[in-house]
């Protein structure tokens, strides 16, 4: 047998052995051990020819195969002696059991590969800025562990690393400049539908400075026009912007 293009690589002796059995299309429970042993040894020689490192595991298996082969060539005298006590022990038995065990996980690994290909196509969003939802006045400070501080820091680094993965496209985004008039009508439209809005929703983290200013000026203008009112139940609570008529309605 010659491998004239490129030698296939195998994950280990079981992988190679399994491949040979599969190729020979023989029953795994009745391996023609002489034939498979020859092919196995041939492959190892080819590996050496191609200057591939033949690890000790491959050599150990070769020795095992030769041992089984020779046991099977022994005359039946041995068998006769044991026949009364136990059923014939096939010298291949242990090898077959291990081969079948290996094959199970090899097939499972193929299944894992398929699943990996599907599920790597899922994306997760990062956690929202939770601190904006926290009632700070409820939090009391007690003894703290330095590790919590360090792990907070490491999490931060991790988060920034993940975030930068999503940044690549950012530079291409051009936000249109917006006028106060646009903003006023946007807020009005929004409030026509919703009647109320959380102040923070009007400002996104990625807003430009000029947009923040414009939004704020628009809000002031709308307050002056008596279109809306701003409410906050207590400090750090959310600031709610409500349309005036809906306030009266309540």
């Amino acid at each position: 047998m010659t491998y004239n293009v490129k030698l296939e690589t195998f994950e280990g002796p079981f992988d190679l052995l399994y491949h040979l059995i599969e190729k020979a299309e023989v029953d795994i429970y009745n391996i023609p051990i002489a034939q498979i042993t020859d092919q196995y040894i041939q492959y190892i020689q080819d590996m050496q020819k191609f200057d591939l490192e033949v690890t000790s595991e491959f050599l150990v298996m070769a020795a095992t195969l030769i041992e089984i082969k020779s046991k099977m060539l022994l005359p039946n005298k041995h068998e006769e002696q044991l026949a009364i006590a136990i059923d014939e022990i096939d010298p291949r038995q242990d090898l077959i059991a291990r081969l079948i065990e290996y094959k199970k996980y090899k097939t499972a690994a193929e299944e894992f590969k398929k699943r990996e290909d599907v599920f790597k196509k899922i994306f997760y969003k990062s956690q929202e800025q939770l601190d904006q939802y926290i009632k700070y006045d409820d939090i009391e400070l007690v003894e703290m562990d330095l590790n919590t501080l360090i792990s907070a820091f490491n999490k931060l680094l991790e988060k920034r690393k993940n975030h930068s993965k999503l940044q690549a496209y950012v530079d291409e985004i051009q936000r249109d400049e917006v006028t106060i008039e646009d903003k006023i009508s946007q807020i009005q439209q929004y409030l026509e539908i919703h009647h109320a809005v959380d102040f923070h929703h009007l400002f996104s983290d990625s807003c430009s400075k000029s947009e923040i200013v414009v939004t704020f000026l628009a809000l002031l203008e709308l307050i002056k026009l008596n279109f809306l009112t701003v409410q906050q139940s207590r400090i750090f609570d959310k600031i709610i912007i409500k349309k005036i008529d809906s306030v009266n309605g309540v």
Partner: protein
Amino acid sequence: MGCNFMEDKEIQSIIESLLFIWGDPLNVKNISEVLDFPPEFIRKTILDLKKQYEAEDRGLQIIEINNSFQLCTNTKHYDYIQKLCTPTQNKGLTQAALEVLAIIAYKQPITRHEVEGIRGVKSDKAISTLLDKELILEKGRLEKTGRPILYGTTETFLKAFGLSCLEDLPAIEDFEKLDFDENEINKTDE
């Protein structure tokens, strides 16, 4: 629970908000505390919402990991998301790493030595790759000479392979059938 249809819809809506804000997997217990409904009811409601997402073929999906739920994107839209965000390419695991992972997944907790016994080859590199990727972790030590490390799989593993829990792993016996016997088995087996 005397929950009528409206209430159910509202609870679904609140849960959707919570999953969105949280981003990470959110435990049923936490949700049940926030909403003051029993965990079993919350769980059922989330599963209903999940089904609804699937039925409507929404852009989002809900996945389950060990009784926690997480909102994520529909796998179908991968190409578009990639076009928008150019995320880093996930190369996937090598065959060796996949074999080791499969053995650990089914036989955990298990030592490196036992893994190598099944594969017939050294597996230290594959194990350290899997540790790096947080697909496996140390689950303790075996109480025998040398106190070898026992490995098990992580939640990252479940997520990466779309499993809700370890019980979701396909039965290992299903992989026992041998390819070259297949025709025979199909025809003659009981």
